[in-house]
């Protein structure tokens, strides 16, 4: 009988999959003390190098290290090629969709996506309407969450605003490569270390002028949970890591304040939500952006990656329409499937959700980080009753999906190797005239036994993903 969960390392009969055979042999030859030492060595590396995320609680700010499991997840190259094609297809279609909804709105007129779903989405930025984006690249950096079941890989979520986690991909790789140097070489693992180089090439290709562009990363600052990642990427690309206070707009041109005066910026890779980019155009109380920034952007004097207003396309309700978007704009069948999704804004979807609350995962349309969701099979009767009330009060704010049997990969937990549920976030880049996907990604793991929630804020950790021959 087929086990309930797909196992990333073992076949149904318990033998190692071809890609992982060497790894299984190597781990089998290690005593528990040796495994513990390996885990300790990768933990120390993260600790000493300060690979942290910041957690704010009240007035306190603490730096935490994301739990890292040293056992890599292995994926055969042919499976990766399938994923890569699917990711590129999806991003191409979403960029076309974004251009369309901020211009002529053909897909809305043709009923591909309901008009009110788009125009009613808080992430739809009316300020973007009619603005011509250089090279029509709305989303230059995308992080797509994938899950695997016995049916294969499926997209769980698109992250089109400020996707994060790539630093953990790079940090995991360095740490795990150091822990298994011989195995790494023997597996001929596909490289991810040139991610920053690829990212820089993509960002500079978007510059509005032909001269060598000045590219910078905009960070909310030290207190942002992903500050480490912003600093890492800026360092690797050799570009400035700017905060709002470093920027000034003059004559609709964006400048950075330097020790030698003002210097023009051509491409700004922003790691800041739309709301905070410009207090003149968006939230007036934002101290994180720069006044007039959007005005300079509208004038076409610099490029923002990603563009404001891209969040409308990663909305959890709109997600259900992505296969139709792909068919409409590309005239192709989606290579990667979606997870079955019920929209509570529709009467059938609402009825199905309320009837099967104990079986479904219910999510808030604008929620993230594993917050504001109900995992039906793990919930109490009282929790379900409370959620049902919330859904009835505002159906459009919820969607539901079946509880997925996420695949499992071996992890070192409590002194021994045990399977845990995992997902995968690869990063897709879209430049002026090409797309790029680094062969790897952030592999998140639910370290609590039985848990399906992989978010770091909910006790999740990460592990390295090795794309290997096969």
């Amino acid at each position, binding site marked *: 009988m087929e086990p309930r969960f797909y196992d990333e390392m073992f076949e149904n009969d318990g033998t190692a999959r071809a890609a992982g055979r060497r790894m299984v042999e190597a781990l089998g030859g290690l005593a528990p003390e040796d495994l513990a030492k390996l885990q300790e060595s990768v933990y120390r590396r993260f*600790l*000493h*190098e*300060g690979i942290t995320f910041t957690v704010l609680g009240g007035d306190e700010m603490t730096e935490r290290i994301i739990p890292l499991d040293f056992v890599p997840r292995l994926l055969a190259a042919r499976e990766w090629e399938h994923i890569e094609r699917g990711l590129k297809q999806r991003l191409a279609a979403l960029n076309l969709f974004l251009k369309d909804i901020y211009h002529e709105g053909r897909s809305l007129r043709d009923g591909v996506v309901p008009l009110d779903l788009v125009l009613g989405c808080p992430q739809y930025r009316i300020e973007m309407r009619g603005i011509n984006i250089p090279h029509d690249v709305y989303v230059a950096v995308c992080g797509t969450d994938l899950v695997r079941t016995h049916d294969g890989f499926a997209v769980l979520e698109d992250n089109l605003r400020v996707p994060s986690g790539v630093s953990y991909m790079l940090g995991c790789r360095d740490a795990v490569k150091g822990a298994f140097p011989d195995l790494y070489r023997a597996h001929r693992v596909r490289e991810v270390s040139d991610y920053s180089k690829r990212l820089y090439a993509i960002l500079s290709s978007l510059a509005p002028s032909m001269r060598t562009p000045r590219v910078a990363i905009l960070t909310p600052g*030290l207190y942002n949970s992903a*500050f480490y990642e912003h*600093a*890492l*990427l*800026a*360092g*690797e690309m050799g570009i*400035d*890591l*700017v*905060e709002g*206070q*470093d920027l*000034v707009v003059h004559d609709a041109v964006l*400048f*950075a*304040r*330097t*020790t*030698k*005066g*003002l*210097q*023009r910026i051509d491409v700004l890779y922003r790691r800041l939500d739309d709301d905070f980019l410009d207090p003149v155009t968006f939230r007036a109380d934002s101290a994180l952006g720069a006044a007039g920034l959007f005005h300079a952007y509208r004038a076409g004097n610099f490029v923002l990656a990603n563009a404001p207003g891209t969040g409308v396309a990663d909305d959890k309700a709109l997600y259900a329409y992505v296969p139709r978007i792909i068919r409409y704009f590309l005239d192709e069948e989606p290579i990667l499937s979606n997870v079955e999704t019920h929209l509570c804004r529709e009467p059938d979807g609402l009825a199905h959700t309320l009837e099967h609350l104990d079986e479904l995962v219910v999510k808030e349309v604008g929620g993230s980080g594993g917050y504001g969701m109900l995992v039906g099979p793990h919930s109490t009767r009282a929790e379900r009753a409370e959620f049902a009330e919330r859904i009835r009060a505002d159906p459009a704010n919820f969607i539901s999906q079946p509880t997925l049997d996420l695949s499992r990969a071996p992890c070192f937990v409590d002194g021994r190797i045990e399977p845990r549920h995992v997902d995968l976030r690869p990063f897709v880049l879209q430049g002026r005239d090409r797309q790029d996907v680094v062969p790897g990604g952030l592999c998140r793991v639910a370290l609590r036994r039985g848990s399906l929630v992989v978010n770091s804020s909910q006790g999740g950790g990460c592990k390295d993903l090795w794309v290997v021959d096969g």
Partner: protein
Amino acid sequence: MLARVAANFYWMGRYLERTKQTIRLVRYPLDRLVDRTAGEIAVAWEVVYRTLGQTPPDAPESRAEAEMFLMTDAYTLAGSLIEETANPESIVSCWNVARENARQVRSHLPLPVWTCLNQGFLWMRDIDLPTAWRSGPSALAGEASDRLRHLSGVMDALMYRDDGWRFMVLGRFIERVQHQAAFLGAWVELGRRERGEAALPWADLLRICGAYEVYSRRYSMQVRQEQVLVFLVQDPELPRSLRFSMHLIEEMLAGIDAAGARYPLAPPHRMALRLAAALEVENLDGERGRDSVRFFRSIANECRRLHELAVAAYLEFPFAAGQET
């Protein structure tokens, strides 16, 4: 370089130097605990606190009480200057601030520099003073000093000599001149009050400044006050002399505003040159030696002014004066 980034480098340099100076100071009375009298230990603590411009925690009213307090409460005083996070001059506080500044510019730092600084932070965060005290009162300061030396070596070996480096060294040496001037002033003033070699020997001053051996080679083993001051202020090759530090400050400012790029010279550069000249020509050896306390005070004040000029010229977003480059 972004003005904010330059400011982070500058403050990182200042706080690392401040850590080093506090370590150097706090070790002095702690090392004296072994074989000095209560009065001598009390004077040593007084030098420390006067240099830092602080009053000891729970300072008593009368001098007699003060001596007793300073002698018996070495543990409290050392704790306040080593691990007390509420004290901004404590070693832990200074290291933390240096690390926070480094964290903001870690994209400009070689990984080993950041790692070394971070490991020091993790060590200090977990300091256990009672245990360390049992193994030797100055053990913690010694370990902190070793970590700082390690960090300095890694920075020297790996950091690129760009504006980031220049602002860091600028901060480090402005801090050093200010601190060293305050320290020498406190030493001279308290030494004069104590009227004797026993309480504050000049040889001790040389040792604290890491200059005793060089002094012996250069002058003699007979330590003379006038020569000590000339050596610590005007020697061009002694890393802790004021003149040496001021020369480095001037060199860094010249690098930040490359020669010929700005005329007339930027205000901080002009002031550094003037201070360097004052240090070179000051007569510390003769009759005017009696004014040395005032001289050190004025150097510390001038250096504070130099800091303000540097901040105004480079670090506080000088966009009003700036043009696109």
